[in-house]
């Protein structure tokens, strides 16, 4: 699926993540609810996650998206640090 067909929701979530994680080297947001904006899968790679436990990394993403999460039914988060 090409990036030009990103949904509004995906674009908004991506924008928020770029703002809150300025050192992120890769961000990918996919609406996995068929475009309904109900559930997202988030992949984010950033130096800001270095040395942090996975649950802490996920908490950082939760906090960053606390407003957006209010309207979601669920989200999946995959964090990583640059090699």
């Amino acid at each position, binding site marked *: 699926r090409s990036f030009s067909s990103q949904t509004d929701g995906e674009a908004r979530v991506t924008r928020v993540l770029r703002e809150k994680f300025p050192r992120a080297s890769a961000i990918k947001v996919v609406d996995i609810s068929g475009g309904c904006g109900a559930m997202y899968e988030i992949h984010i790679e950033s130096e800001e996650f270095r040395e942090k436990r*996975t649950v802490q990394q996920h908490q950082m993403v939760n906090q960053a998206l606390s407003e957006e999460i209010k309207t979601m039914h669920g989200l999946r988060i995959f964090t990583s640090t640059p090699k």
Partner: protein
Amino acid sequence: MSAALRAAWRVGAAAARGRAGRALSQAASESGGAEGGGGSGSREAVERLVRAHPVVVFMKGSPEQPLCGFSNAVVQILRLHGVEDYRAHDVLQDPDLRQGIKNYSNWPTIPQVYLNGEFVGGCDILLQMHQNGDLVEELKKLGIRSALLDAEKDQDKK
């Protein structure tokens, strides 16, 4: 993910999609009404639950009948490791607990897995721990020997 796990996931996820969902808006709500007073969602009540057993899971449905693909995945992963003795709490049966557990862990989603009273994460984290071997180590710390260690031993023998 194994084929069996993927299949179980699809069934659970499809069932969950068919149900009218509710938004996670209350995850961030301050006035959830589930705080204090000793109700089932109060900090004290949740604390008692997470400390009651080495492995405690807050999920949708039960281990016998999970009602969500992600909750089902947690149940299947624990089963793969031979962990059948654990406390499972169905948040769909208790709205106060459903909100209370989210407030307690400051985590917006269900399922939630607690090992030795400590919040470990949701289904994605448990899956990652299963795949990278961390789960076997964490279970060992609780005095639980993962069934996968015995499965490996059997393979070595062949």
